[in-house]
């Protein structure tokens, strides 16, 4: 087999192991959600085609290692019959990670799994200059660590204050973990948007409802990565209110990467080279 063939297999989620002739088969998982039926199929496939082992990856993926070259087609067909797809590797849009968001977690502000499915549907496996990782986290607790990803989406609350009925008790300021709120008693409550992390603790703490949710939505962080030289993604754009808008922006971000990224260059390095302003301008102009 030539190098090109190995690369094609890798793009299709079949990754060559150290041992000659053996492959680790990456499965298609979205937001770490796997049904019990799929787990049963994965169990059966690992026993039948591998060595009865399953590897849980660092990004919520599932791989079946020790599958011989001659069984790759068979394992793929077997899993497909149970609704389990084979994953991707190489210079493509990779597994989209997500927390359980507001569907399960009391802290969740957005439906992270649903947005992960939308992004997966639109972009999973699509070619890009280098691997591209999306992550969706439900709130400021950031269990998914979105800033480590090429494009991360975080559930976000923008608080808004109104004077009526405010007693200036200061609980909003006391609850704020970053000191973004200053109470001028009897006069006003001042919000420093640049220090706000969108957690919404102030709105939860307010006894009168005068510090309330003004916007609940999606904050995007672009240009993060881990690996050998880690870099944290930076916030771009105002808080988006609609998941469809997030998908539109994500498409524009990927267009920017395809247009400006060099082959083999991580998106973080592209953004560092062009400046984040160029990315924001491109996204703003995209239809």
């Amino acid at each position, binding site marked *: 087999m030539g190098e090109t063939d190995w690369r094609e297999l890798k793009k299709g989620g079949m990754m060559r192991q150290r041992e000659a002739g053996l492959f680790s088969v990456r499965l298609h998982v979205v937001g770490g959600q796997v049904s019990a039926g799929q787990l049963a199929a994965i169990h059966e496939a690992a026993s039948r085609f591998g060595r009865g082992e399953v590897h849980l990856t660092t990004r919520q993926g599932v791989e079946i290692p020790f599958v011989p070259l001659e069984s790759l087609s068979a394992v793929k067909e077997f899993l497909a019959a149970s609704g389990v797809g084979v994953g991707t590797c190489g210079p493509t849009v990779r597994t989209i990670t997500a927390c359980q968001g507001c569907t399960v977690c009391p802290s969740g502000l957005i439906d992270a799994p649903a947005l992960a499915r939308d992004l997966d549907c639109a972009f999973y496996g699509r070619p890009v200059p280098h691997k591209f990782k999306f992550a969706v986290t439900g709130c400021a607790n950031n269990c998914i660590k979105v800033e480590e990803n090429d494009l991360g989406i975080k559930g976000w609350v923008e608080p808004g204050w109104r004077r009526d009925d405010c007693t200036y*008790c200061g*609980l909003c*300021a*006391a*609850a704020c*973990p970053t000191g973004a709120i200053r109470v001028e008693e009897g006069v006003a409550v001042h919000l420093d948007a640049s220090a706000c992390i969108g957690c919404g*603790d102030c709105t939860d*703490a307010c*006894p009168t409802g005068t510090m309330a949710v003004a916007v609940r939505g999606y904050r995007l962080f672009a240009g993060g990565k881990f690996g050998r030289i880690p870099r944290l993604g930076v916030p771009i754009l105002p808080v988006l209110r609609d998941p469809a808008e997030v998908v539109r922006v994500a498409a524009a971000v990927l267009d920017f990467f395809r247009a400006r990224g060099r082959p083999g260059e991580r998106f973080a390095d592209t953004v560092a080279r062009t400046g984040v302003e160029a990315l924001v301008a491109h996204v703003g102009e995209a239809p």
Partner: protein
Amino acid sequence: MTQELDITGDACPLTHVKVGRAMDLLAAGGTLRVTLRADALKAVMSSLKAAGHRVTAAERRDDGLVVIEVLRA
């Protein structure tokens, strides 16, 4: 009649569980005065509001602790 509760030594979820239990033991119209740390505010206030109780007074003390008075629904 006002009952007193100090949860400054407790961590979530014991904070709002203890407050919820103390509210359950109050007669309707009774008041609970709770002393807590600022980092417990989110969970405690959320659970009180969800249960329909009303915070009638709040004070930030100089030592950083918070005191709230809650009227049982």
